[in-house]
């Protein structure tokens, strides 16, 4: 991790892990609250707590293994 900015890890068959300095906003410009400094953002579309990942992707097979 660098001291400024943020870094995103694309987890194969899983979420985006975001760490560093960032804010998350919804479509209305409202900040999505979180008290975590590293978050997992859902990439599969199945999470019940979007935009965050809740692990449901593990039941879904949404992305082929490379």
């Amino acid at each position, binding site marked *: 991790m660098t001291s400024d900015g943020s870094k995103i*890890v694309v*987890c*194969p*068959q*899983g*979420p985006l*892990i975001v760490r560093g300095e960032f804010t998350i906003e919804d479509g209305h410009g409202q900040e999505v609250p979180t*008290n*975590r*400094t*590293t*978050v*997992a953002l859902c990439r599969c579309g199945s999470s*019940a*707590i979007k935009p*965050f*990942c*809740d*692990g*449901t992707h*593990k*039941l879904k097979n949404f992305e082929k*293994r490379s």
Partner: protein
Amino acid sequence: MKLPPQRGPVSAELIDLLRTFAPENDQTACDDRLVVPLESEDILFSDDLQLSLFVLYELHYRGFDEVDERWEWNPQLLALRARIEEQFERKLREIAMDVSYVPGDAQAVAQQLFTLANDDGGPSVSNFIAREATLEQAQEFLIHKSIYQLKEADPHSWAIPRLNGRGKSALMEIQFDEYGAGRPGAMHSELFALTMRGLELDAEFGAYIDRLPAITLASVNMMSLFGLHRRLRGCIAGHLAIYEMTSSIPNARYARGFRRLGFDTPVTDYFDEHVEADAVHEQIAGRDLAGGLIEYDPTIATEVFFGAQAACAVDALVGEHQLTAWRSGKSSLRTATERMPA
């Protein structure tokens, strides 16, 4: 916590010794007492040996009320611990089954651990809690969990000075979150205490020790065994990885179960928090902790996978114990007769 009641010859001698003597003055007392033979058919289900091991380990965590703190490093107690641990580790290696790990990079390690977690065919306590548990069964479930969750993350913290590089940073990132990210009152152990109090349970660590069966103690003793030995640092990393990977989905079910029983925040906070937190932790634990550790030292790989597989095997036994009791309308905790002094 208070010293628990004994459950057989070894724990009887041990607990009596801790209660009565001072470590430095009474060496002969130790010599006479701690040579008791360790007999057990299956150490995972031995009340006497699992309780003894729990007590010996607890000296390294928070100790016991009115017990001399110097006992922690007493050579005779360490020798007794080593004798029990030898049997315990042998049994764990037996039930964990062979490791089938294919060497690869950190992502390959994570993927194999995720596969292991997915294939874990252990009995589903979480489905039971979600759909059918009664209030009493939900309380019992919390009582079983409390012996770890009220000191959640502590056994894995022993590994911190024993790792380096990517694996260590990963462990620190996870543990920081487990301990509430610096926010007082937000430690996962504290959230769990709120859940317990919400169900009118005593949230003091160890309050229900006498009611816990050997197999529940075995699951927390396994973490202390892995955590306290540098030699087993790979195992504690594998253990943490598999715990994180088998957490988000079950915790969503627990939350559903407690809501079905009429509870809400703050009782459900612990479970809700773990749905979100462990979806992050499982990625870090698989790729950066376990994967990072193996990248740094490929020879540790089988130990990482052994730790993960042992965790699955023991927790399957805990789950089986709970579900068998509940399905036949019985308590999963030790009964009053079982708790009668022998």
